[in-house]
Protein backbone atom coordinates (compact mmCIF):
# COMPACT_ATOMS: atom_id res chain seq x y z
CA UNK A 1 0.00 0.00 0.00
CA UNK A 2 1.23 3.43 -0.87
CA UNK A 3 0.05 6.67 -2.36
CA UNK A 4 0.52 8.06 -5.82
CA UNK A 5 1.03 11.78 -6.33
CA UNK A 6 -0.16 13.27 -9.60
CA UNK A 7 2.58 15.84 -10.08
CA UNK A 8 0.64 17.52 -12.86
CA UNK A 9 -2.18 18.27 -10.42
CA UNK A 10 -0.29 18.84 -7.16
CA UNK A 11 -0.02 22.46 -5.97
CA UNK A 12 2.86 21.52 -3.57
CA UNK A 13 1.15 23.11 -0.55
CA UNK A 14 2.27 20.51 1.98
CA UNK A 15 -1.14 19.97 3.61
CA UNK A 16 -0.75 16.20 3.06
CA UNK A 17 2.57 16.22 4.91
CA UNK A 18 0.92 17.82 7.95
CA UNK A 19 -1.74 15.11 8.27
CA UNK A 20 0.39 12.03 7.53
CA UNK A 21 0.40 9.94 10.73
CA UNK A 22 3.59 8.14 9.71
CA UNK A 23 5.66 11.10 8.57
CA UNK A 24 5.97 9.29 5.23
CA UNK A 25 5.59 12.41 3.10
CA UNK A 26 7.96 15.28 2.47
CA UNK A 27 7.49 18.48 0.49
CA UNK A 28 10.68 19.21 -1.43
CA UNK A 29 10.31 22.61 -3.10
CA UNK A 30 7.78 21.76 -5.82
CA UNK A 31 7.10 18.07 -5.36
CA UNK A 32 5.97 15.54 -2.76
CA UNK A 33 8.14 12.54 -1.91
CA UNK A 34 6.65 9.39 -0.37
CA UNK A 35 8.85 7.01 1.62
CA UNK A 36 8.33 3.35 2.41
CA UNK A 37 6.66 3.98 5.78
CA UNK A 38 3.44 4.90 3.95
CA UNK A 39 0.62 2.56 5.03
CA UNK A 40 -1.86 3.73 2.38
CA UNK A 41 -4.24 5.04 5.06
CA UNK A 42 -5.55 7.65 2.61
CA UNK A 43 -5.84 10.62 4.98
CA UNK A 44 -3.62 12.71 2.69
CA UNK A 45 -5.78 11.80 -0.31
CA UNK A 46 -8.90 12.87 1.60
CA UNK A 47 -7.67 16.30 2.60
CA UNK A 48 -5.74 17.27 -0.56
CA UNK A 49 -7.32 20.55 -1.79
CA UNK A 50 -6.95 19.53 -5.43
CA UNK A 51 -7.24 15.73 -5.24
CA UNK A 52 -3.72 15.02 -6.43
CA UNK A 53 -3.15 11.93 -4.26
CA UNK A 54 -4.53 8.44 -4.87
CA UNK A 55 -4.00 5.36 -2.68
CA UNK A 56 -2.56 2.45 -4.65
CA UNK A 57 -2.84 -1.15 -3.54
Amino acid at each position, binding site marked *: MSVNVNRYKC*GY*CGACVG*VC*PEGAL*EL*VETWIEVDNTCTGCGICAKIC*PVGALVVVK
Partner: protein
Amino acid sequence: MKERYDVIVVGAGPGGSITAKTCAQGGLDVLLIEKRQEIGDPVRCAEGVGRDALKKHIAPDKRWIAAEVKGSVLIAPDGTQVKMSEDASNPKAGYTLERKVFDRALAQQAAMAGAEVMVKTRATELLRSNGKITGIKAMYMGETRDIKADIVIGADGVESKVGRWGGINTVLKPVDIETCAQFLVSNIDPGDYSKFYLGSNYAPGGYVWVFPKGEHTANVGIGILGSRSGDVRAISLIQRFVDIYMPQAKIVEIVVGGVPVSGPIKQTVSDGLILVGDAARQSDPLTGGGITNAMDAGEMAGNICIKAKEKGDYSVKTLKEYEDKWRATIGKEISKSLQVKNLLIKLSDEQLNQLAHSLDGVDVSKMALPVFLLALFKKNPKLLWELRELFK
Protein backbone atom coordinates in the same frame (compact mmCIF):
# COMPACT_ATOMS: atom_id res chain seq x y z
CA MET B 1 28.21 29.61 6.07
CA LYS B 2 29.85 28.59 9.30
CA GLU B 3 29.97 25.14 10.82
CA ARG B 4 28.21 26.15 13.98
CA TYR B 5 25.72 28.74 15.19
CA ASP B 6 23.95 29.54 18.41
CA VAL B 7 20.58 29.10 16.70
CA ILE B 8 19.39 27.62 13.39
CA VAL B 9 15.92 28.67 12.26
CA VAL B 10 14.29 26.29 9.78
CA GLY B 11 11.82 28.14 7.56
CA ALA B 12 11.84 31.79 6.46
CA GLY B 13 8.16 32.64 6.78
CA PRO B 14 7.05 35.44 9.11
CA GLY B 15 7.59 33.31 12.25
CA GLY B 16 11.07 32.19 11.27
CA SER B 17 12.26 35.58 10.12
CA ILE B 18 11.11 37.35 13.29
CA THR B 19 12.77 34.65 15.41
CA ALA B 20 16.01 35.09 13.48
CA LYS B 21 15.85 38.87 13.68
CA THR B 22 15.20 38.82 17.43
CA CYS B 23 18.11 36.41 18.01
CA ALA B 24 20.45 38.47 15.86
CA GLN B 25 19.50 41.71 17.59
CA GLY B 26 20.32 40.00 20.88
CA GLY B 27 23.82 39.30 19.61
CA LEU B 28 23.38 35.62 18.81
CA ASP B 29 24.93 33.85 15.86
CA VAL B 30 21.91 32.77 13.87
CA LEU B 31 21.32 30.99 10.58
CA LEU B 32 17.94 31.25 8.82
CA ILE B 33 17.34 28.56 6.20
CA GLU B 34 14.57 28.33 3.60
CA LYS B 35 14.08 25.20 1.52
CA ARG B 36 12.65 27.12 -1.41
CA GLN B 37 14.84 29.03 -3.76
CA GLU B 38 12.60 32.07 -3.35
CA ILE B 39 11.47 33.34 0.05
CA GLY B 40 7.75 34.14 0.06
CA ASP B 41 6.85 32.13 -3.00
CA PRO B 42 4.71 30.20 -3.74
CA VAL B 43 2.12 31.84 -1.47
CA ARG B 44 -0.20 29.53 0.49
CA CYS B 45 -2.29 32.12 2.22
CA ALA B 46 -5.24 34.51 1.91
CA GLU B 47 -2.93 37.36 2.94
CA GLY B 48 -5.35 39.08 5.31
CA VAL B 49 -3.89 40.59 8.48
CA GLY B 50 -4.99 42.90 11.29
CA ARG B 51 -3.33 46.29 11.18
CA ASP B 52 -2.37 46.79 14.81
CA ALA B 53 -1.20 43.23 15.35
CA LEU B 54 1.14 43.70 12.40
CA LYS B 55 2.41 47.14 13.41
CA LYS B 56 3.91 45.68 16.58
CA HIS B 57 6.55 44.06 14.41
CA ILE B 58 7.07 46.14 11.29
CA ALA B 59 6.12 49.58 10.00
CA PRO B 60 3.51 49.31 7.23
CA ASP B 61 5.11 49.73 3.82
CA LYS B 62 3.22 50.24 0.59
CA ARG B 63 5.59 47.85 -1.19
CA TRP B 64 3.87 44.91 0.51
CA ILE B 65 0.41 46.26 1.29
CA ALA B 66 -1.80 45.32 -1.64
CA ALA B 67 -4.93 46.90 -0.18
CA GLU B 68 -6.31 48.42 3.00
CA VAL B 69 -9.63 47.05 4.20
CA LYS B 70 -12.15 48.95 6.31
CA GLY B 71 -13.62 45.88 7.97
CA SER B 72 -15.41 42.62 7.39
CA VAL B 73 -18.79 41.61 6.03
CA LEU B 74 -20.17 38.23 7.09
CA ILE B 75 -22.67 36.73 4.66
CA ALA B 76 -25.12 34.14 5.98
CA PRO B 77 -26.33 31.22 3.81
CA ASP B 78 -29.51 33.15 2.88
CA GLY B 79 -27.52 36.24 1.88
CA THR B 80 -28.08 38.29 5.05
CA GLN B 81 -25.11 40.58 5.53
CA VAL B 82 -23.52 41.54 8.85
CA LYS B 83 -21.01 44.36 8.61
CA MET B 84 -18.27 44.69 11.22
CA SER B 85 -15.62 47.31 12.05
CA GLU B 86 -16.86 50.01 9.75
CA ASP B 87 -14.72 52.62 11.44
CA ALA B 88 -11.38 52.88 9.66
CA SER B 89 -9.75 53.84 12.95
CA ASN B 90 -10.87 50.54 14.45
CA PRO B 91 -7.81 48.49 15.36
CA LYS B 92 -9.33 45.44 13.74
CA ALA B 93 -9.28 46.99 10.30
CA GLY B 94 -6.51 45.51 8.28
CA TYR B 95 -4.52 44.90 5.18
CA THR B 96 -4.36 42.46 2.35
CA LEU B 97 -0.66 41.75 2.04
CA GLU B 98 1.53 40.92 -0.91
CA ARG B 99 3.18 37.98 0.85
CA LYS B 100 5.82 37.51 -1.83
CA VAL B 101 7.18 40.95 -0.99
CA PHE B 102 6.28 40.92 2.70
CA ASP B 103 8.11 37.68 3.54
CA ARG B 104 11.23 38.93 1.79
CA ALA B 105 11.08 42.23 3.68
CA LEU B 106 11.01 40.30 6.97
CA ALA B 107 13.91 38.07 5.92
CA GLN B 108 15.74 41.21 4.86
CA GLN B 109 15.24 42.65 8.35
CA ALA B 110 16.68 39.49 9.86
CA ALA B 111 19.64 39.69 7.50
CA MET B 112 20.29 43.35 8.29
CA ALA B 113 20.17 42.54 12.01
CA GLY B 114 23.01 40.11 11.43
CA ALA B 115 21.39 36.76 10.68
CA GLU B 116 22.84 34.61 7.95
CA VAL B 117 20.31 33.47 5.36
CA MET B 118 20.48 30.42 3.11
CA VAL B 119 17.83 29.64 0.49
CA LYS B 120 17.28 26.40 -1.41
CA THR B 121 18.48 24.77 1.80
CA ARG B 122 16.33 22.05 3.33
CA ALA B 123 16.72 20.47 6.77
CA THR B 124 16.67 16.69 6.31
CA GLU B 125 17.19 15.54 9.90
CA LEU B 126 18.34 16.60 13.37
CA LEU B 127 21.89 15.97 14.49
CA ARG B 128 22.27 14.36 17.89
CA SER B 129 25.08 13.62 20.24
CA ASN B 130 24.36 11.49 23.33
CA GLY B 131 20.67 12.00 22.60
CA LYS B 132 21.06 15.78 22.68
CA ILE B 133 20.10 17.86 19.63
CA THR B 134 23.26 19.45 18.26
CA GLY B 135 22.10 20.89 14.93
CA ILE B 136 20.72 19.77 11.60
CA LYS B 137 21.63 17.97 8.44
CA ALA B 138 20.83 20.31 5.57
CA MET B 139 20.79 19.87 1.84
CA TYR B 140 21.87 22.77 -0.35
CA MET B 141 21.96 22.39 -4.12
CA GLY B 142 21.89 18.62 -3.84
CA GLU B 143 24.67 18.34 -1.28
CA THR B 144 24.18 17.45 2.36
CA ARG B 145 26.18 18.97 5.18
CA ASP B 146 26.08 19.09 8.96
CA ILE B 147 25.44 22.43 10.64
CA LYS B 148 25.78 22.61 14.41
CA ALA B 149 23.72 24.74 16.78
CA ASP B 150 22.66 24.86 20.42
CA ILE B 151 19.02 25.46 19.51
CA VAL B 152 17.02 24.47 16.43
CA ILE B 153 13.85 26.44 15.71
CA GLY B 154 11.19 24.62 13.68
CA ALA B 155 9.35 27.37 11.82
CA ASP B 156 8.72 24.98 8.97
CA GLY B 157 5.03 25.49 8.48
CA VAL B 158 2.03 23.20 8.12
CA GLU B 159 4.30 20.46 6.73
CA SER B 160 6.66 20.73 9.72
CA LYS B 161 9.05 17.84 10.23
CA VAL B 162 11.38 19.42 12.78
CA GLY B 163 8.96 18.81 15.66
CA ARG B 164 8.38 15.19 14.66
CA TRP B 165 12.11 14.56 14.41
CA GLY B 166 12.41 15.96 17.93
CA GLY B 167 9.73 13.61 19.26
CA ILE B 168 6.91 16.18 19.35
CA ASN B 169 3.60 15.01 17.95
CA THR B 170 2.38 17.63 15.48
CA VAL B 171 0.22 15.32 13.34
CA LEU B 172 -3.02 17.03 12.31
CA LYS B 173 -6.19 14.95 12.12
CA PRO B 174 -8.56 15.76 9.23
CA VAL B 175 -10.75 17.71 11.66
CA ASP B 176 -7.67 19.76 12.66
CA ILE B 177 -6.95 21.20 9.22
CA GLU B 178 -8.74 23.49 6.79
CA THR B 179 -7.96 22.48 3.23
CA CYS B 180 -7.88 25.60 1.10
CA ALA B 181 -7.83 26.79 -2.48
CA GLN B 182 -7.79 30.36 -3.73
CA PHE B 183 -7.78 32.26 -6.97
CA LEU B 184 -6.32 35.70 -7.43
CA VAL B 185 -8.97 37.09 -9.75
CA SER B 186 -8.87 40.12 -11.95
CA ASN B 187 -11.63 42.15 -13.61
CA ILE B 188 -13.75 42.55 -10.49
CA ASP B 189 -14.51 45.39 -8.12
CA PRO B 190 -14.44 43.84 -4.63
CA GLY B 191 -15.06 47.08 -2.68
CA ASP B 192 -13.05 47.81 0.45
CA TYR B 193 -14.36 45.21 2.89
CA SER B 194 -13.21 41.65 3.36
CA LYS B 195 -16.16 39.33 2.76
CA PHE B 196 -16.79 35.98 4.44
CA TYR B 197 -19.49 33.63 3.10
CA LEU B 198 -20.70 31.05 5.62
CA GLY B 199 -22.74 27.88 5.21
CA SER B 200 -22.56 24.37 3.81
CA ASN B 201 -23.63 25.55 0.39
CA TYR B 202 -20.49 27.68 0.11
CA ALA B 203 -17.97 25.86 2.30
CA PRO B 204 -18.67 22.79 4.48
CA GLY B 205 -17.10 23.51 7.88
CA GLY B 206 -15.32 26.62 6.70
CA TYR B 207 -15.93 29.73 4.68
CA VAL B 208 -15.40 31.43 1.35
CA TRP B 209 -13.43 34.68 1.49
CA VAL B 210 -13.13 37.61 -0.87
CA PHE B 211 -10.24 39.88 0.13
CA PRO B 212 -9.74 43.04 -1.96
CA LYS B 213 -6.22 43.17 -3.37
CA GLY B 214 -6.30 46.52 -5.17
CA GLU B 215 -6.41 47.38 -8.87
CA HIS B 216 -9.62 45.42 -9.60
CA THR B 217 -8.25 42.22 -8.11
CA ALA B 218 -9.16 40.07 -5.10
CA ASN B 219 -8.12 36.88 -3.34
CA VAL B 220 -11.18 34.64 -3.68
CA GLY B 221 -10.66 31.49 -1.68
CA ILE B 222 -12.20 28.72 0.33
CA GLY B 223 -11.30 26.64 3.34
CA ILE B 224 -13.23 23.48 4.10
CA LEU B 225 -12.76 21.22 7.09
CA GLY B 226 -10.46 18.32 6.25
CA SER B 227 -12.97 15.85 7.66
CA ARG B 228 -15.53 17.04 5.11
CA SER B 229 -13.14 16.97 2.17
CA GLY B 230 -12.86 14.01 -0.18
CA ASP B 231 -16.15 13.73 -2.00
CA VAL B 232 -15.88 17.46 -2.62
CA ARG B 233 -12.63 19.39 -3.01
CA ALA B 234 -11.71 22.94 -2.08
CA ILE B 235 -10.59 23.63 -5.65
CA SER B 236 -13.87 22.56 -7.29
CA LEU B 237 -16.01 24.42 -4.75
CA ILE B 238 -14.16 27.69 -5.25
CA GLN B 239 -14.27 27.24 -9.03
CA ARG B 240 -18.05 26.83 -8.73
CA PHE B 241 -18.30 29.93 -6.51
CA VAL B 242 -16.42 32.06 -9.03
CA ASP B 243 -18.45 30.67 -11.95
CA ILE B 244 -21.74 31.50 -10.22
CA TYR B 245 -21.05 34.75 -8.36
CA MET B 246 -18.36 36.44 -10.45
CA PRO B 247 -18.61 35.04 -13.98
CA GLN B 248 -16.71 38.02 -15.40
CA ALA B 249 -13.68 37.32 -13.17
CA LYS B 250 -10.41 36.23 -14.71
CA ILE B 251 -8.20 33.91 -12.73
CA VAL B 252 -4.58 35.05 -12.77
CA GLU B 253 -3.17 32.85 -10.01
CA ILE B 254 -3.99 29.63 -8.13
CA VAL B 255 -3.01 29.22 -4.49
CA VAL B 256 -3.52 26.07 -2.40
CA GLY B 257 -2.73 25.31 1.21
CA GLY B 258 -3.58 23.66 4.50
CA VAL B 259 -4.25 25.69 7.65
CA PRO B 260 -3.89 24.12 11.12
CA VAL B 261 -7.08 24.63 13.15
CA SER B 262 -6.29 22.22 15.98
CA GLY B 263 -5.92 24.83 18.70
CA PRO B 264 -2.95 24.53 21.09
CA ILE B 265 -1.00 21.27 20.86
CA LYS B 266 0.44 19.61 23.97
CA GLN B 267 4.10 20.35 23.45
CA THR B 268 6.11 22.88 21.42
CA VAL B 269 9.57 22.69 23.02
CA SER B 270 12.03 19.98 23.89
CA ASP B 271 15.72 20.06 24.76
CA GLY B 272 17.40 22.30 22.18
CA LEU B 273 14.23 22.63 20.11
CA ILE B 274 11.44 25.20 19.74
CA LEU B 275 8.47 25.22 17.35
CA VAL B 276 7.04 28.50 16.04
CA GLY B 277 4.01 29.50 13.95
CA ASP B 278 2.10 26.98 11.85
CA ALA B 279 4.69 24.35 12.82
CA ALA B 280 3.49 24.85 16.42
CA ARG B 281 -0.13 24.91 15.20
CA GLN B 282 -0.53 28.49 16.46
CA SER B 283 -2.88 29.66 13.71
CA ASP B 284 -6.36 30.76 14.75
CA PRO B 285 -8.90 27.91 14.42
CA LEU B 286 -11.78 30.30 13.75
CA THR B 287 -10.33 32.74 11.24
CA GLY B 288 -7.43 30.64 9.97
CA GLY B 289 -5.17 33.66 10.45
CA GLY B 290 -1.61 32.76 11.41
CA ILE B 291 0.74 35.53 10.34
CA THR B 292 0.73 37.75 13.42
CA ASN B 293 0.51 34.83 15.85
CA ALA B 294 3.63 33.40 14.23
CA MET B 295 5.39 36.77 14.46
CA ASP B 296 4.44 37.17 18.13
CA ALA B 297 5.64 33.63 18.86
CA GLY B 298 8.83 34.26 16.89
CA GLU B 299 9.68 37.22 19.06
CA MET B 300 9.02 35.20 22.22
CA ALA B 301 11.15 32.34 20.92
CA GLY B 302 13.99 34.67 19.96
CA ASN B 303 14.00 36.24 23.40
CA ILE B 304 14.15 32.84 25.09
CA CYS B 305 17.09 31.88 22.88
CA ILE B 306 18.94 34.98 24.08
CA LYS B 307 18.19 34.02 27.68
CA ALA B 308 19.26 30.42 27.10
CA LYS B 309 22.58 31.59 25.68
CA GLU B 310 23.16 33.84 28.71
CA LYS B 311 22.49 30.93 31.06
CA GLY B 312 24.30 28.43 28.88
CA ASP B 313 21.31 26.12 29.31
CA TYR B 314 19.38 24.96 26.25
CA SER B 315 17.25 22.35 27.94
CA VAL B 316 13.48 22.34 28.33
CA LYS B 317 14.04 23.89 31.76
CA THR B 318 14.95 27.20 30.11
CA LEU B 319 13.02 26.87 26.87
CA LYS B 320 9.79 26.07 28.67
CA GLU B 321 9.38 29.76 29.41
CA TYR B 322 8.56 30.19 25.71
CA GLU B 323 5.88 27.55 26.00
CA ASP B 324 4.37 29.23 29.08
CA LYS B 325 4.46 32.65 27.43
CA TRP B 326 2.73 31.73 24.20
CA ARG B 327 0.13 29.63 25.96
CA ALA B 328 -0.79 32.57 28.21
CA THR B 329 -1.31 34.85 25.19
CA ILE B 330 -1.74 33.24 21.75
CA GLY B 331 -2.80 29.96 23.37
CA LYS B 332 -5.65 31.57 25.27
CA GLU B 333 -6.96 33.27 22.15
CA ILE B 334 -6.78 30.21 19.94
CA SER B 335 -8.42 28.05 22.62
CA LYS B 336 -11.40 30.40 22.57
CA SER B 337 -11.44 30.40 18.80
CA LEU B 338 -11.38 26.61 18.83
CA GLN B 339 -14.50 26.51 20.97
CA VAL B 340 -16.30 28.88 18.61
CA LYS B 341 -15.13 26.88 15.59
CA ASN B 342 -16.28 23.60 17.15
CA LEU B 343 -19.75 25.07 17.64
CA LEU B 344 -19.94 26.81 14.25
CA ILE B 345 -19.16 23.65 12.30
CA LYS B 346 -22.13 21.94 13.97
CA LEU B 347 -24.67 24.64 13.05
CA SER B 348 -27.05 24.11 10.15
CA ASP B 349 -27.51 26.75 7.45
CA GLU B 350 -30.89 27.49 9.05
CA GLN B 351 -29.24 28.18 12.40
CA LEU B 352 -26.56 30.37 10.81
CA ASN B 353 -29.33 32.41 9.16
CA GLN B 354 -31.07 32.68 12.53
CA LEU B 355 -27.86 34.07 14.08
CA ALA B 356 -27.52 36.66 11.31
CA HIS B 357 -31.17 37.72 11.64
CA SER B 358 -30.85 38.09 15.42
CA LEU B 359 -28.56 41.06 14.82
CA ASP B 360 -31.22 43.00 12.93
CA GLY B 361 -31.20 46.50 14.40
CA VAL B 362 -28.01 45.89 16.43
CA ASP B 363 -25.11 48.13 15.49
CA VAL B 364 -22.18 45.73 15.26
CA SER B 365 -20.30 47.92 12.83
CA LYS B 366 -17.64 49.01 15.29
CA MET B 367 -17.27 45.78 17.18
CA ALA B 368 -14.11 43.74 17.27
CA LEU B 369 -14.61 39.97 17.18
CA PRO B 370 -14.85 39.22 20.96
CA VAL B 371 -17.41 41.99 21.51
CA PHE B 372 -19.31 40.86 18.44
CA LEU B 373 -19.43 37.28 19.75
CA LEU B 374 -20.75 38.49 23.09
CA ALA B 375 -23.52 40.47 21.35
CA LEU B 376 -24.38 37.36 19.35
CA PHE B 377 -24.41 35.22 22.50
CA LYS B 378 -26.76 37.59 24.30
CA LYS B 379 -29.23 37.40 21.42
CA ASN B 380 -28.96 33.63 21.02
CA PRO B 381 -28.17 32.13 24.43
CA LYS B 382 -29.84 28.82 23.65
CA LEU B 383 -28.11 28.21 20.34
CA LEU B 384 -24.73 29.34 21.66
CA TRP B 385 -25.04 28.00 25.21
CA GLU B 386 -21.89 25.91 25.03
CA LEU B 387 -19.87 29.11 24.54
CA ARG B 388 -21.02 30.60 27.84
CA GLU B 389 -17.63 30.01 29.52
CA LEU B 390 -16.04 32.39 27.01
CA PHE B 391 -17.93 35.36 28.34
CA LYS B 392 -17.26 34.97 32.05
